[in-house]
C-alpha cells in the first residue's frame, strides 16, 4: 500500500482504516481496510450504493461515530497528524476548523428553533474565530455572499428557507472556519436537477477560490463524473477501485465499477441497453469470504471466494482490488 502514499503532497492519507459497528446481531464490518489519499485542492469522490460504507468513512474521518462504532485499526493522517490517536478534546479542535462536513439532509443539520445566523456564529465563537458581535456579523455577511444567499436571510429560521437555500446555509456553515478539507455527503441528492446544477458549479468555484480539498460522497456517478478529479469506488465496506475520474470512467477495471457504469442511464448518446447486476449487496453482518463482490461477479473463480484481492496499481495511479481486472474492460467501447 505504500506506493500510493509515497510523498507529502497529500493533505489526507487514510491507511488501512477499519471500523465496525457492534450490534445485537454481531459485528457489522462497515469499513474494511480502506486506504486512499486526498491531495491539496483536489476533489476526491467516493461512490457506491447505500450501505457500502461511504458515509461511515466520512464519520470515521471526523470521529463522529455513534457509540457502537469502533475504529478497529488503521490511520488517518491529516498533514502527518494521526487523527485516530487524538483524544476527543483534541479532535474537537480539528473538527470544523480543519475538516468540516456538509450533511445530506440540510433540514436535519439545521436546528429549527434557532436562527440560521446564530447557528453559524456558535461555530465561529467555539473556534475563537471572532471576538465581537460586529466581527461575527461581518463574517456572516461575507459567508452568505460567498454561497449566494441574501443578507436578509441571516435572521430567518430554517423553515423559511427553500431546499436549495438550506443547503447553501449548510455550506456556509461548513466554510465558516476556513477548513482545509470539506466532506460533502450527498450534498445535492434531495434537490431538483436545476438547483443541483447550480449548487455543484458554485461549490466547484468556491473550492477553487478558497483552495480547499473536498471529499465528495455520492451514489450518483453522473454527478461524480462532473465534479471530481479522482474517485474511489466502494463496495460492501471496501475500496475496490481508485483512479482519476477519466481513468475510472473510460476504463473501469473492477467488474462492479463496470456494471455500475453500464447500469446507469444517460440522456445523451445513443440509447443503449442497460445492464443489470444480478443479486443484491451483501449483508455486512456476515460478508462473503474472499472478494465481497464474488457472489455477483460474472468472472468469479474459486480463488475469489477464498482470497481478499489487494488494491494494486495497474499503471498511472489507477488502483483496483480485483484479480481479473482486464476482463471487465474487454466489453468497454
Amino acid at each position, binding site marked *: 500500500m505504500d506506493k500510493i502514499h509515497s510523498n507529502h503532497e497529500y493533505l489526507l492519507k487514510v491507511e488501512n482504516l477499519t471500523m465496525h459497528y457492534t450490534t445485537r446481531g454481531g459485528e457489522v464490518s462497515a469499513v474494511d481496510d480502506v486506504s486512499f489519499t486526498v491531495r491539496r485542492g483536489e476533489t476526491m469522490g467516493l461512490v457506491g450504493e447505500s450501505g457500502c460504507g461511504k458515509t461511515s468513512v466520512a464519520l470515521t474521518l471526523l470521529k463522529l461515530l455513534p457509540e457502537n462504532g469502533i475504529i478497529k485499526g488503521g490511520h488517518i493522517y491529516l498533514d502527518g497528524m494521526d487523527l485516530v490517536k487524538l483524544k476527543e478534546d483534541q479532535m474537537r479542535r480539528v473538527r470544523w476548523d480543519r475538516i468540516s462536513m456538509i450533511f445530506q439532509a440540510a433540514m436535519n443539520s439545521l436546528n429549527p428553533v434557532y436562527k440560521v445566523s446564530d447557528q453559524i456564529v456558535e461555530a465561529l465563537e467555539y473556534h475563537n474565530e471572532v471576538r465581537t458581535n460586529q466581527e461575527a456579523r461581518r463574517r456572516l455577511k461575507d459567508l452568505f455572499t460567498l454561497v449566494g444567499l441574501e443578507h436578509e436571510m441571516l435572521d430567518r429560521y430554517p423553515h423559511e428557507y427553500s431546499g436549495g437555500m438550506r443547503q447553501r446555509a449548510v455550506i456556509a456553515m461548513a466554510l465558516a472556519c476556513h477548513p482545509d478539507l470539506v466532506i460533502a455527503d450527498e450534498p445535492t441528492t434531495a434537490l431538483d436537477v436545476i*438547483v*443541483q446544477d447550480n449548487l455543484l458549479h458554485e461549490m466547484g468555484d468556491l473550492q477553487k477560490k478558497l483552495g480547499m480539498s473536498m471529499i465528495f460522497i455520492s451514489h450518483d456517478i453522473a454527478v461524480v463524473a*462532473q465534479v471530481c478529479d479522482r474517485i474511489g469506488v466502494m463496495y460492501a465496506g471496501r475500496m475496490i477501485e481508485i483512479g482519476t475520474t477519466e481513468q475510472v470512467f473510460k476504463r473501469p477495471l473492477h467488474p462492479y465499477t463496470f456494471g455500475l457504469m453500464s*447500469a446507469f*442511464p*444517460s*440522456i*445523451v448518446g445513443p*440509447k443503449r441497453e442497460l445492464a443489470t447486476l444480478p443479486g443484491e449487496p451483501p449483508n455486512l453482518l456476515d460478508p462473503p469470504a474472499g472478494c465481497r463482490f464474488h457472489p455477483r461477479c460474472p468472472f468469479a473463480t474459486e480463488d475469489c471466494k477464498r482470497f481478499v484481492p489487494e488494491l494494486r496499481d495497474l499503471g498511472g495511479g489507477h488502483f483496483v482490488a480485483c484479480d481479473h481486472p482486464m476482463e471487465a474492460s474487454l466489453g468497454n467501447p
Partner: protein
Amino acid sequence: MAIHDSPKDTPFEKNTIQGNMISPDTGFEPLVRVVGLKKLFPLNAGLFREAKSYVHAVDGISFTIQEGESLGLVGESGSGKTTTGKLLVRLLDPTEGQIQIVMNGSIADVAKIRPAEMKMFRQSVQMIFQDPYESLNPRRTIYDTVAEPLAVQGIGNIAEREYMVAEILTRVGLIPAKSFMFRFPHELSGGQRQRVAIARALIVLPTFVVADEPTSMLDVSVRTGIMHLMLDLSETLGVTYLYITHDLAVARYMSKRLAVMYRGKIVEIGETEEVLANPLHPYTRALLKAVPIPDPTMKQERPDIKGNISKPIDPEPRCRYIDRCPLAAEVCAANDHPPLEEITPGHWVACYRAEDTR
C-alpha cells in the same frame, strides 16, 4: 357504501365526449384521455372561512395515452406530477376537467365513477408508489399484501389465490415464490419490496398503471432490474404506464412519449427521443442541460434559467415560465399561458416564442 353488494358486471354508462377541446374521433380511441384537468387546493380555508387563494397544483392539462405507449411525466418537485397521477387513479377528485379511461371496451369518466363502480375501476387502474418502505404494511405477510386485491375483487377461492400469488411473485422475480410468500416486508431488501409492490398492483391484471417514482429510492444496481421488470410486464401483461419521475434519463428508458410539467402546466409533450433530441420549450432545454452526464469528458453548457420554481398560488394570467425564461417577451406577459401547439408531427409545445427560436 354499497360497494360490496353491487353486481360484479355493472356496465358503465358510456360517456359521450363533449366540448370543443377534444379533437373529433379518429377511430383510434386512446386508453386514457385527459381534458382540461384542474386541481386547486384551497389555502387557509376553515369551517366558516372561505379560501381566498388557491394552489393551482394541476392547472388545466390535456393529454392522451395510447394503449402500449407509456407516457413519462417529468418536472421539478412541486410541478404537479404526483397530483396528476393521483387524479388519474381517483385518489383525488378533480376541481375541473375530464379523465376518460377505456375499461372493458367502454369509456369511463373517472370523476363520475360511483362508489359502487369503484371496485371495477380499481381492477383496471392501479398505482405503484415511490417508497416501498412506506407502501407495504409491516404487519402483513407478502402473501396477505399481494392477495388482498384478489379478495377485494372477489377473484378465485383460497387455493386459486395462492396459485395466482405464487405466479405473480415468480413473474416479478421473487423466486422461489413459496419462500417469499410468508415473509414480512422487513425481511426483504428495498428492491425486493418494490417487486412486491409491483406484484400487488399487477395481480388483478390492470390495463393502466400510474407509477410514481417507483425506482427513485433504489440503488443503481437494483434499479435497472426493476426498470427491466416493469418493461417486460408491460409487454407480457399488456400494461400501459403513466411513469412519473424527476429523472429524465430514467424516463428515456421507461416511456415512449414524454410530457414535461412546470407549475401545473404541461409545457411540452412528444415522442421521448424527439423531445430529448429537439427540445422546443426553454424550460425543457434548461432541464436537459442541468442533467449530469456520466462522462467526465463531456462538459455541458450551463442551463439558461433564472431563479427558482415558485408555488403556483393564484398564478397571474400570463406564461407561467415568464419569470425564469431567457426568451420572455411582451407577448408572454400580455397573454395567458400559451396553449400547446403542434410544431412538428406529434411534438407539442406551449410557448409563444418556440417558433422564433427553433
